[in-house]
């Protein structure tokens, strides 16, 4: 064994060959046992989810506020346990994997935190680096490569408070790249970005798809979902539809998912 070489770095659990990236079997989650005024029965935030997502697929998750999109992401990421049912990522339960990247909504990030762009991207590496170890040369090289790939190489030494919305999104994508993520969960990443910036972000996702990275992206933008995704999941506590865009966005599905709340111009 050579000195200085990383030997026992925890890379998360192995992937089952041939297993789908993500599979859910009758998953119920977010049980609220308390009876609240006006509701007849206790409810789950998510009910009876059964679906699978294959490697490299790009899925838009669409649904009204409170449909359970964030709960769904937390279950997939393994930070929330379902009350019932089975979740598998590459053939195993989610909580052993470090290949799942969750990119939070931008307004949930403390942009005043004293870190630079490269500090944030390096955070993606610490699962690979392991406890009590310092980032090495190869980790910094990975960080620089990740920033280069999202077109943010020039931002490395900037404080995160100095970034535009599009740059913020690029940095978090770079962090997911540095993490060597194979399943990317993006929570409304396009909100508040102008159209050219949205296109640039989608271009980065196209690039990731070539590496077989699977992307689940929560959005309110039905046009974007229809144009740039393989499949659309209409979610309203249950999976209303999980089909190709043309089928998923049929009027009866939308009515079912949104009730009467969708106003077409």
């Amino acid at each position: 064994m050579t000195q200085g070489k990383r030997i026992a770095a925890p890379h998360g659990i192995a992937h089952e060959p041939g297993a789908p990236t993500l599979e859910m079997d009758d998953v119920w989650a977010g049980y609220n046992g308390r009876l609240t005024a006006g509701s007849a029965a206790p409810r789950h935030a998510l009910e009876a989810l059964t679906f699978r997502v294959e490697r490299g697929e790009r899925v838009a998750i669409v649904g009204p506020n409170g449909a359970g999109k964030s709960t769904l992401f937390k279950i997939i990421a393994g930070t929330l346990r379902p009350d019932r049912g089975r979740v598998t990522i590459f053939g195993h339960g989610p909580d052993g994997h470090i290949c799942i990247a969750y990119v939070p909504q931008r307004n949930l990030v403390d942009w005043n935190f004293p870190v630079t762009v490269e500090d944030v991207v390096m955070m993606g590496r610490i699962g690979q680096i392991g406890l009590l170890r310092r980032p090495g040369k190869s980790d910094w090289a990975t960080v620089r490569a990740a920033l280069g790939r999202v077109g943010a190489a020039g931002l490395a030494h900037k404080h995160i408070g100095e970034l535009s919305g599009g740059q913020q999104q690029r940095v978090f994508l770079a962090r997911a790249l540095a993490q060597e993520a194979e399943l990317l969960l993006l929570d409304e990443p396009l909100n508040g970005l102008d159209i050219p910036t949205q296109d640039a972000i989608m271009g980065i996702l196209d690039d990731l798809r070539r590496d077989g990275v699977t992307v689940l992206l929560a959005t309110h933008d039905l046009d974007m979902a229809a144009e740039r995704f393989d499949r659309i999941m209409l979610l309203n506590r249950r999976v209303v539809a999980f089909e190709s865009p043309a089928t998923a966005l049929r009027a009866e599905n939308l009515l079912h998912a949104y009730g009467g709340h969708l106003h077409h111009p």
Partner: protein
Amino acid sequence: MSFLLDPLQYDFIVRALLAAAVVGVVCSVLGVYIVLRGMAFLGDAMAHTILPGVVVAFLLGWPLAVGALVMGVLTALGIGALTERTSLKEDTAIGVIFAGFFALGVAMLSLRGNYSIDLAHFLFGNLLGVSTSDLILMAALGFVVLALIFLFYKEFLVLSFDPLLAATLRLPARFLNYLLLMLIAVTIVVALQVVGVALMLAILVTPAATASFLTGRLPSMMAVSAAIGVFSGVAGVYASYYLNIASGPAVVLVATAIFLLVLGLSVVRRRAGVATVPARLEAQ
């Protein structure tokens, strides 16, 4: 020069200066995490809840740090468990424990004859009464705190900035959160004789808050905070010597003065259109 050297002819002043410097470094570095994670109230509460432990050690003639450490660890575990397992809001749960234990400590102390002098020492510190063995214990505990902050640097950084990332990278978040609470408890023990229970919060958050105006990166924020902490401690001892004021409050007043100075400067600079990187106050 003799202004600086004169006080050094007294051994208790030298010990006080060393103690103030140790506390300045340890509290100010850990304080950065307290400020970034919004744990100021928790830190204040923990400083108060250790009082019964300190009083018991005092009454039994044990080293104060032993009682404080036991109580600090119990508080860290208790607060952690309470917030995880009850429907109480965190600040309410902390408030209940904090006031109750503080009252218990004061009540036990009041059993003694010279209650008011003892109480003053616990509340506001007794920097000039630091013994050599106190100093060694403070330095040893302080070293342990700094070593652990260094060892778990990247984990604490991620846990503070993005708890969800920490969870998806499968970091031992519970362990790290308890460890941070324990570090706060130990740090409070280290600082007890310098600033006392009532002023503890100032030495934990004021230098770190000041540093947050001055730098945009965590390591430099820790370094600046430590420098401010050490300067406040040392200058406070001198101020105490020459102005004949209580040492604990003197240390805190120096730190507060630096904070106000830096705050004023950053406001002036922003008015003048100079871009300041971490405009932390604007976000709050």
